[in-house]
């Protein structure tokens, strides 16, 4: 018996697949032989890994280095309340072992980067992009194109989702459509802009469907097609994609022949590398506010202010800051805050370059304020 033959227990488990003419025993054995790498064990990774394991994919690799947070649980159904604070991969692998003990789950608890991506991806047949940032999306795309692996793409934001299969060998890649990334500050992440909890369930399930079709060799894949989904209007729209003859990666004359620095390419500065004009720790900021030696500027959105706010703050969302600077007294000392620091750090620079001489970033934002000054302020 070869390793891909189905045991009696597997036959029982997969019987509803086995009686499908399109899958049958041979298709199910193909699923068992297939090695799938899911990059990102978050919103998309949750339905993806659970459905792929349940479907009988033989080897399932997972890449993630985060820990489970309470704010993950409204959409990341792979995890439960008791997983908060645990490494995602530890929790995921336990859960997936229960979903299907016949699937071998391989943890890759690393941040995928140019130094490790090809080595990891080469061990798999199909790669699934469930990441949450542009640098990693370009990295996954490029590594898949260079390694000759199909990249089952999905992305989500607020109420919108996208799905495609990028396969540079036979069709367009991510760069054929998205040749150059957007300016980093213009496209918010789900952490900044929010996301409907069920949306990754829908998009991740569509990605799982594409993986299963590729693995079993059935149906029409989404190679050369991009699906746009609008959950509010309940509307699907399909865009035809073709290989871009000017693609820097997968055209006949590529300019990209190895992995590059994706943070730099996307103009993304790591949070730790962002330099505010000056930082002030929350307890010191609280003292200044009490002494009325500084004003407090909140650059978060209205929705975030509805969740939690520090009394006395002036609200100007970061997107309006440049137009509304005249509302602020340039001669005064200002403390700027957002949720955790990146937006207020950018805001301190805007203020400093506009004639404000005495500007501080509230270190760690309202989240740190809640932990260090006023625990009655909700964390989100």
């Amino acid at each position, binding site marked *: 018996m070869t390793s891909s033959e189905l045991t009696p227990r597997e036959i029982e488990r997969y019987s509803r697949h086995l009686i499908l003419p399109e899958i049958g025993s041979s298709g199910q054995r193909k699923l068992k032989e297939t090695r799938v790498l899911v990059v990102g064990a978050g919103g998309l990774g949750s339905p993806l890994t659970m459905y792929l394991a349940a479907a009988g994919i033989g080897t399932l690799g997972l890449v993630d280095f985060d820990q489970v947070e309470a704010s993950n649980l409204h959409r990341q159904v792979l995890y439960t309340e008791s997983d908060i604070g645990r490494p995602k991969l530890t929790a995921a692998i336990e859960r997936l072992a229960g979903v299907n003990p016949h699937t071998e789950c391989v943890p890759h608890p690393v941040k995928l980067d140019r130094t490790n991506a090809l080595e990891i991806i080469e061990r798999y047949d199909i790669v699934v992009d469930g990441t949450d940032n542009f640098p990693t*999306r370009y990295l996954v795309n490029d590594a898949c194109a260079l390694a000759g692996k199909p990249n089952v793409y999905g*992305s989500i934001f607020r109420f919108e989702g996208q799905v495609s299969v990028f396969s540079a060998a036979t069709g367009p890649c991510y760069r054929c459509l998205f040749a150059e990334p957007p*300016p980093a500050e213009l496209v918010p992440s789900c952490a900044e802009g929010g996301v409907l909890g069920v949306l990754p369930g829908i998009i991740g399930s569509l990605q799982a469907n594409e993986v299963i079709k590729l693995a079993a060799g059935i149906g029409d894949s989404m190679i050369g097609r991009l699906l746009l989904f609008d959950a509010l209007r309940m509307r699907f729209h399909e865009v035809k994609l073709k290989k871009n003859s000017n693609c820097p990666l997968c055209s006949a004359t590529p300019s990209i022949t190895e992995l590059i620095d994706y943070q730099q390419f996307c103009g993304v500065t790591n949070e730790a590398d962002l330099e505010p004009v000056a930082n002030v720790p929350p307890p010191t900021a609280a003292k200044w506010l009490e002494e009325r030696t500084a004003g407090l500027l909140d650059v978060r959105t209205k929705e975030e202010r509805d969740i939690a706010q520090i009394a006395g703050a002036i609200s100007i969302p970061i997107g309006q800051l440049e137009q509304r600077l005249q509302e602020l007294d340039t001669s005064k000392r200002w403390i700027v805050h957002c949720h955790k620091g990146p937006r207020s750090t950018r805001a301190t620079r805007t203020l400093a370059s506009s004639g404000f001489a005495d500007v501080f970033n509230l270190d760690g934002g309202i989240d740190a304020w809640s932990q260090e000054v006023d625990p009655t302020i909700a964390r989100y």
Partner: protein
Amino acid sequence: MKIRVNGEAVVIAQPISLTGLLEQIEIDPRTVAIELSGEVIPRAEFSNVQVQSGDSVEVVRFVQGG
């Protein structure tokens, strides 16, 4: 005159650049990729490329979340 944007009818007063079209539908040109009649248009060309009556434009937002 009528064009189609992501499959839906949009009325424009006269032939308009992609930049002008995005302004009309209130989308920042730096946050999307555009396909016009099946061809991806580089961002640097948005202001030079004209949309005519009957054209079909696909506007695809950059979405990073997962």
